[in-house]
């Protein structure tokens, strides 16, 4: 959309200035993420261009080094458990909350998604004191429960969003035709909310996989996760293996972003919502 031919020179000036500012801001947003990818193939442990040669040594260290391997395993184990737990809890709650005239719906919803509004450092300190008393400190179970607390709101939000405009007469029709509640859920409700559930599950997985503050407070070195290892790596001498780890995480986010976007489109198509 070029500048209108009827525009005054001043308007044209503003038009190009606006474009220039936007280009700069978009570069600011995307450049740091893109700059780090080529550096992960650098053959020397420095962070500057031009690179003297290419090598896969940092990836080798990431996938074969004991420290990173344990961290990767821990991260995946914790995130998968968190995903299963939070998707179940969150979907059930969203289903309940979406029933028409649920009492105190707004207040309850605010309470259930408050874990993402409360600063994580407060959650971490509070859980640290609490877990110290109940003996969950420095355990996998403690870390999983803590991550589930901050991951579940994402599931509640996405599934609730899928359920807005959900046609409850569909479930009534199924029930009227003689289907027991369980059949209604699995054959009618579930296929419709599945895209929301999967997006929520991905968000939950991502939020656990990326979480560092809780991992620092309530877990020990034995339960170290990928972000925690990266955090200590930056605080000390920054090791180029971090760039390899970062690149893998970026690819991971791109894959997640694509999946969620595809699911969102599918869900809108299923529910007959047209995006203008």
């Amino acid at each position, binding site marked *: *959309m070029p500048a209108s031919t009827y*525009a005054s020179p001043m308007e044209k000036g503003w038009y190009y200035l*606006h474009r220039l*500012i*936007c280009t700069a*801001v*978009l570069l600011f*947003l*995307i450049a*740091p*993420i893109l*700059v*780090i990818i080529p550096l992960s193939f650098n053959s020397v442990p420095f*962070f500057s*261009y031009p690179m003297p040669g290419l090598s896969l040594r940092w990836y080798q260290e990431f996938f074969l080094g004991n420290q990173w391997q344990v961290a990767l395993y821990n991260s995946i184990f914790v995130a998968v458990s968190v995903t299963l737990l939070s998707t179940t809890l969150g979907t*059930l*709650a969203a289903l*309940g909350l979406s029933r028409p*005239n*649920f009492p105190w719906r*707004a207040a*309850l*919803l*605010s*309470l259930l*998604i*408050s*874990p993402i*509004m*409360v*600063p994580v*450092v*407060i*959650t*971490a*300190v509070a*859980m*640290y*004191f609490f877990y110290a008393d109940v003996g969950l400190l420095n355990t996998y179970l403690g870390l999983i*429960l803590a991550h*589930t607390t901050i991951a*579940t709101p994402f599931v*509640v*939000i996405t599934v609730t*969003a899928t359920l807005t405009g959900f046609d409850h007469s569909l479930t009534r029709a199924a029930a009227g035709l003689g289907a027991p509640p369980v059949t209604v859920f699995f054959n009618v409700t579930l296929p419709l909310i599945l895209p929301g559930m999967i*997006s929520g599950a991905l968000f939950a997985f991502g939020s656990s996989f*990326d979480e*560092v*503050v809780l991992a620092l*407070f309530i877990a020990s070195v034995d339960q170290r996760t990928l*972000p925690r290892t*990266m*955090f200590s790596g*930056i*605080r000390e001498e*920054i090791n180029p293996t971090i*760039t390899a780890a970062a690149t893998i995480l970026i690819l991971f*986010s*791109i894959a997640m*972003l694509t999946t969620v976007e595809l699911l969102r489109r599918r869900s809108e198509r299923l529910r007959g919502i047209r995006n203008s």
Partner: protein
Amino acid sequence: MVTMAVQIARGPDGMPLRTKLARVERRRKLRAFTLVLPLLLFILIGFVLPIGRMMFNAVHDDTLLTLMPRTTAALSAWDGADLPDESAYAALAEDLKQAWAQRATGAIAKRINYELPGLGSQVTSSARKASTLSAGPYKPALIEINPLWGRQDVWSLLKRGSSAYTAYYLLRSVDYQYGPNSEIVASPPENAIFWDMFLRTLGISIGVTAATLLLGFPVAYLLATLPAKYSNLLMIMVVLPFWTSLLVRTVAWVVLLQQHGVLNEMLLGLHIISQPAQLIFNRIGTVIAMTHIQLPFTLLPIYSVMKTISRTHVRAARSLGAGPFYAFWKVYFPQTLPGIAAGSLLTFILCLGYYITPAMVGGPNDQMVGSFIAHYTNEELNWGMASALGAILLTATLVLYYVFNKLVGVDRIKMG
């Protein structure tokens, strides 16, 4: 007719339909609540309870009450004017002996050291000596062991310990503390660090919010006005960072901005600067990294509001004779205000609680309230202070969250 209506209003089992419907409704509500219950319990036990306990810890400290029961009891009648009499000293000696036998002097010393720095070790050593005392009078004996037991401020502190509740931690958080006679005085300069820290937290948060608004508004406008095939492409550039791990982005900034990082080497190579500029581990680095992280949070709500603004409004204003800037300012801009309010409030709330980013890319003078909470929890092990600072931060966050809810509505929070 009347009999028929009565018959219809009753089901086959003779129960009025109204009652039956109410019963079905109640059962349905109960079932809906049962679905919510597991998560509600999980959040209440695993989240609300721990945070409530932390808030409680900010004003509750019964260390002295439980470890020095006799002394605190004896002091309940003390008027605080002169040093207490022999009975209080006898109680103190008894408590110190018991604490020494139970190895509890460390906790007492730590508690006294919070309010009167430097006295901790003296408390421990005098407890060791007091454990050898066998008979009174205790008052001269204890003061002989250590002159600290003849100090008014120490006894005032012990008297305050007779209550399990203390305002000390909250007072310290706003740079006040107790004086020698339990009056509230301003903290001495070496302790008065918190007011500065809160101002810094506010300053950085406001600065980052303003920066995201300035940078985000033009881009949101571009995205909202471009045809879909271009804006979808550009949208990826906004959403990808939003989805990228926070750690990855922080690593990226360290790599870019450090002394021999990409940006410095580039500027040196182009002969723009003659020596590497300090761009990270200071305020600049903190604000850049935080702005980068928060930009999508501010931008996306503005964008979604702009999408709903009809372009015909500005065209109408133009055709009625308004200049391009006047039309934008008077017709378009006011309609974007809900988005601006939502986006900047969200960013401001999130900024207040930042801990990891300032810790990684900031210097010692860029640490915000979150870092102090972490420091008191992990390093000083002063949980009262951590709880008090946490309580203040949490209260601020919840108040803003409430405003956000009233303004935007919690239902409108969307992902991606």
